């Protein structure tokens, strides 16, 4: 014996079967739970607990120390536990207009960017879904291809394109359309370009998925019933692709609201977005409690409407 394993006497058949049967019963009972556990554990560890920490900090007060906030729970005297909940950070959010404006502007920029993504992404997804089957995969690859380059590098590339002596201005000057370079970088325009460019694939992919699985005989049926192609698109294709439009819009809108890198690199000093405000509270002012309050408020503002939406979606899904 070269493998060094001890030679076991052959087991009688029956006990062996009982053993494996026991294992099977065990795996039947706990297997499902074990498979489901890792995602929940992951979410608890890296989402729920950090969020609770942020929530805790948002109720504390700043102090010049390490860490830069006072503990929430402390001993006042012997055996008296004291919890200090400081709501001042939240009141501050309401008092200073900066925060409200930043929220509103973030929603505006994210909303308009989502709309642009939808208007550009829908024809793209439609064209890919209706393209010959053999070239669909290459076309989808092209949509996903930018992800193979670092996000940051792609945003820097846009700086090179949009700046005053950049590629786009050079081209426009060469064509003679303008005689002065246009100020594009450090404007809201550049922020829109950056967000739409970066998040377009997230709109195209779910839209493609819904459009691709649509039963084309429905369009034939529409034509057969006297419906011209454009009307057939409006009354059949468009309503049936709403789930894809919603999924794509969510995937673009939610991260766009909290976007920090794009407005910071492409936006001007007056491009007010909540992500930037958060950053400066945290790193410039070192006011962790207010930064935390901003983060919690953003989460509530975003998550609450989405949960209400999903709830109504599920309800209408059950009844239909």
């Amino acid at each position, binding site marked *: 014996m070269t493998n060094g394993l001890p030679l076991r006497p052959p087991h009688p058949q029956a006990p062996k079967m009982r053993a494996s049967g026991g294992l099977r019963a065990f795996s039947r009972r706990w297997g499902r739970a074990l498979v489901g556990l890792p995602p929940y554990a992951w979410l608890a560890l890296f989402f729920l607990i950090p969020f609770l920490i942020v929530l805790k900090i948002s109720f504390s007060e700043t102090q010049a120390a390490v860490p830069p906030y006072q503990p929430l729970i402390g001993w006042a005297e012997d055996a008296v536990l004291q919890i200090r909940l400081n709501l001042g950070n939240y009141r501050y959010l309401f008092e200073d207009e900066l925060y409200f404006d930043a929220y509103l502007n973030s929603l505006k920029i994210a909303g308009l960017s989502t709309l642009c993504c939808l208007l550009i992404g829908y024809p793209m997804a439609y064209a890919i879904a209706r393209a010959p089957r053999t070239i669909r995969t290459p076309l989808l690859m092209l949509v996903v291809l930018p992800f193979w380059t670092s996000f940051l590098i792609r945003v820097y590339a846009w700086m090179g394109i949009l700046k005053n002596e950049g590629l786009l201005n050079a081209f426009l000057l060469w064509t003679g359309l303008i005689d002065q370079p246009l100020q594009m970088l450090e404007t809201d325009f550049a922020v829109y370009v950056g967000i739409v460019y970066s998040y377009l694939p997230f709109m195209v992919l779910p839209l493609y998925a819904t459009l691709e699985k649509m039963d084309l*005989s429905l369009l*034939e049926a529409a*034509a*057969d*019933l*006297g419906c*011209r192609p454009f*009307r057939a698109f409006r009354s059949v294709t468009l309503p*049936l692709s709403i789930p894809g439009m919603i999924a794509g819009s969510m995937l673009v809108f939610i991260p766009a609201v909290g976007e920090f890198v794009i407005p910071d690199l492409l936006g001007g000093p007056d491009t007010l977005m909540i992500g930037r405000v958060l950053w400066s509270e945290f790193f410039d002012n070192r006011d962790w409690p207010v930064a935390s309050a901003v983060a919690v408020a953003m989460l509530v503002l975003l998550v609450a409407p989405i949960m209400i939406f999903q709830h109504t979606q599920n309800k209408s899904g059950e009844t239909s």
Partner: protein
Amino acid sequence: MAPPSVKQHVFAPWNDPDAKPLIRIEGVSKSFGDFSAVNKVDLDIYPGEFFSLLGASGCGKTTLLRMLAGFEIPSEGSISIDGVDMTDIPPYERPVNMMFQSYALFPHMTVEQNVAFGLKQDRMPKARIAERVKAVLDLVQMSSLAARKPQQLSGGQRQRVALARCLAKEPKVLLLDEPLAALDKKLREQTQLELVNIQDRVGITFVMVTHDQEEAMTMSARIGVMNAGSIEQVGTPVEIYEYPATTFVADFIGTANMFDGVVALDEQSHTVVDCQELDARLVVGHSSGVAVGAPVTVMVRPEKMMVQREPPEERVNCAHGVVSDIAYLGDISIYHVRLASGRKVQVALTNLRHTSEQRLTWDDEVYLTWHPANSLVLVQ
């Protein structure tokens, strides 16, 4: 009983030289790349007719139907409906409606909205649309489920909605692509007659595609049997079963016993064929119209054969063999008789009694005979 002086009206416009066809298909071919799906089809379909295109899958019947609907454009030839050439007319302007095999009901609309869809395209006033929708839903007995969505309906109910949606526009022609294929057997048989009744009531010309010969024979006034892109024979169910024009049709419709031979004598009233395989002369009760010595096939249906244990006096219209398989189907039994050549012939006998005195069993030696009028010469 009607008195003999009143001649009963028989619907057979195809026999009337003055009748004008509603659909005229002339020399229509369709190829996809190298593949020729439909090959030089000529066909006339008359107003009020229930016409079936019958064939195995891939025979081109669906392509022909889709050309009528306008989803495919003929590579050659022309189609006209009610005297109007359809070549350049898109599907949404044709006076035909199609019932799809998948039904193609709009999943985001209720039954009512599905049925109203076609009428809305015509910009019909709302009140008239509602009236019409109610009328067709009543016709297919689906009024009580008008507010449901298609996914809340059973297969049979969806089929009815699909039919109602096509009927709503009162087309000149209704095209049906395997309309009953998705239903189970019992429901399918019930729906067959219902569909014929509806067709009778609305008086619209129906063109149906099916692969199910029983379905075609139950429902149609005439059947076009298709094979490899061509129409092999057009005729009433009786014609294509009793008088198939080709060996393909004989074999495709029902079961056929076929014996190859050469013509020994051809007269006005009968043909005599020498059949080497059976070592017998076959007398067929009609003229074959081919020269003596020409190779032909004689076809006999299983239910038209008689079985006896003793050899007949003459070896005319006779086959000799041994029972090798028996299929008991309740109403009839099918006996497979192996001939000396090793080939099997099928005989169908009605089970008149529980136990017949002359009940056949395996390995019985039998002689099969048939009447000259019950066989047919097919020219190869």
